[in-house]
């Protein structure tokens, strides 16, 4: 007992320093994330937990109508969401970053321009584009009619063929400034001597980008892709705001997170059955596994391609 008291007198400050953080993080982050695993393996009656149910919840989500159709649909929408965003940020985003990383007249203006949408909340972004893209009254349709492209005007958010792509592009408008900034910072971290050496060897602009910038940028591109992946597989707000909790029209923009939300909390507008906690937890755990696997893969890749200079 005296030994314990003595240890505490010598190391009590460590407890004082660490306890609040451990308590906060343990109670409100680690505990919920870990418990959602056990939630998914239980039977639920409303908010009351029933017996151990094995993988029954998973089997139901993956195999029983309508959950299976919704799940695979949402998963494929999330995959397209990420694929398209990744494509845009590693072509257009990389191009912009390469151009803006050299300080020339007015570069600060462009930097601010691309990044401004990122500071806006998804609620504002969603409603802003909902109005802009309105096929009857919206400025986009108005502009197309002014230049004689009336036939291009479509209910972009209302028809199955274009709704998801439109939402993804709106998200890209909001998001792109962030990868551009990160790539820019990484390019500016590359020592000038590399480019001077390339110039001495007679490399042109394109070659020095291909053989100097791009290889040294790979770790940042990998890191950014993980962040994009995590963000896109959690995307919720934009679809909820623009297309409703069921991803209208007819689930064409439904995502894993909106499917999860309907299953867990119900959606009065579409008559969803609320409070299916076991099923919702199973969806959440599968999202956790997908995100965990992708980020583990990405972190490994980014560490392998890391260069010290």
């Amino acid at each position, binding site marked *: 007992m005296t030994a314990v008291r003595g240890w505490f007198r010598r190391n009590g*400050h460590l407890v*004082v*320093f*660490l306890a*609040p*953080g451990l308590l*906060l*993080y343990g109670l*409100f*982050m*680690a*505990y*919920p*994330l*870990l418990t*959602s695993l056990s939630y998914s393996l239980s039977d639920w009656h409303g908010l009351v937990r029933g017996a151990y149910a094995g993988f029954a919840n998973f089997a139901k989500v993956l195999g029983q109508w309508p959950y299976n159709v919704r799940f695979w649909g949402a998963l494929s929408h999330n995959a397209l969401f990420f694929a398209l965003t990744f494509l845009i940020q590693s072509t*257009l985003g990389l191009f*912009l970053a390469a*151009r803006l990383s050299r300080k020339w007249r007015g570069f600060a*203006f*462009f930097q601010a*321009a*691309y990044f*401004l*949408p990122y500071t*806006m*909340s*998804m*609620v*504002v972004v969603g*409603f*802003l584009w909902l*109005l*802009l893209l309105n096929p009857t*009254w919206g*400025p986009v349709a108005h*502009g197309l009619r002014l230049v004689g492209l009336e036939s291009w005007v479509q209910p972009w958010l209302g028809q199955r063929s274009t709704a998801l792509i439109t939402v993804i592009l709106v998200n890209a*408008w909001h998001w792109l*400034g*962030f990868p551009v*900034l*990160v790539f*820019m*910072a990484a390019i500016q971290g590359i020592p000038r001597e590399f480019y001077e050496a390339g110039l001495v060897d*007679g490399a042109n602009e394109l070659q020095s980008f291909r053989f100097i910038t791009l290889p040294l940028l790979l770790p940042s591109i990998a*890191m*950014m892709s993980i*962040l994009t992946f*995590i963000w896109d597989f*959690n995307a*919720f707000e934009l679809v909820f*705001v623009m297309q409703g909790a069921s991803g209208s029209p007819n689930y064409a923009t439904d995502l894993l997170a909106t499917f999860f939300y309907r299953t867990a909390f119900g959606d009065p507008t579409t008559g969803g059955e609320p409070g299916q*906690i076991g099923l*919702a*937890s199973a969806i*959440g*755990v599968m*999202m956790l596994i997908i*995100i965990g696997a992708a980020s583990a893969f990405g*972190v490994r890749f980014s560490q392998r391609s890391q260069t010290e200079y």
Partner: protein
Amino acid sequence: MLPRAPAATTRRRPRVARTVSRTLIYLALVLLALGFLYPIGLMILDAFKTTPEIFRNPFGLPSHVGLETFREVWRRAHFGLYLRNSVLVTGGSLLVLLACAAPAAYAIARYRFPVRGLIFLFFLAGIMVPIRLGILPLYLLMKHLSLLDTPFSLIFTYAASGMPMSVFLLSTFFRTLPSDLEDAARIDGCSEYRTFWSIMLPLVRPAVATVTIVNVVPWWNDFFFPLLFLQSNTWKTVPLGMQIFFGQHLTNWSLVFAGMLMSSLPLLVVYLLMSRQFISGLTSGAIKG
């Protein structure tokens, strides 16, 4: 040095072609920047117009500039209340986060003790995991603690989710400080707490600024947790309050545009005033993450 210069000039493209390609790239940059800015510019312009004017003439300047619409939003949307709540929640979350993360990071970075590596790993494990995926247990926990429909549900959730990144950034920074400082303080009879608070903490102010920027932007804009945790109007934050307001007044475009401008203004102003700190904070958070 080899006489390479002549060879390099022959390989270089003619001057005219260079100028043309430069101009094309510049043009592309300008057009893209316009594409990015135009929707925001339109939002600002249309916020000053009446709804029929927006429909008739969406691109032109407003026929008269007045603040009536903004006043109407302020009154009808309880905007002042939501603004106060957003400030309280974001500020409270930041206080709780710093009070928990700074001492923890300091202990991990500056002391040697048995389970140090394990504790650091425990914090780091959450760095890539979105807290949203634990929402169901978190919701029930808040319910049992009677924190639902109070700002504390948001404050604790935000602060906890900020811990991994903040402990990581702050401990990296604490580790770079010279140990002479601590030794001198100890010789002068400073307690461990005093050393932390008066000597070490002021030295990591840049890292505290980064932690602040990285966390405050997503908290301020968050819609997901307020949607689930808050039911009554008393504690609604700007994004949630405005989402409901926009939904109710979707046909009154003038009101909606004004509301959008008002909800975006705080961060837009902060960003334009201190864009350099903003940018370096956000990118260092992302790269080190």
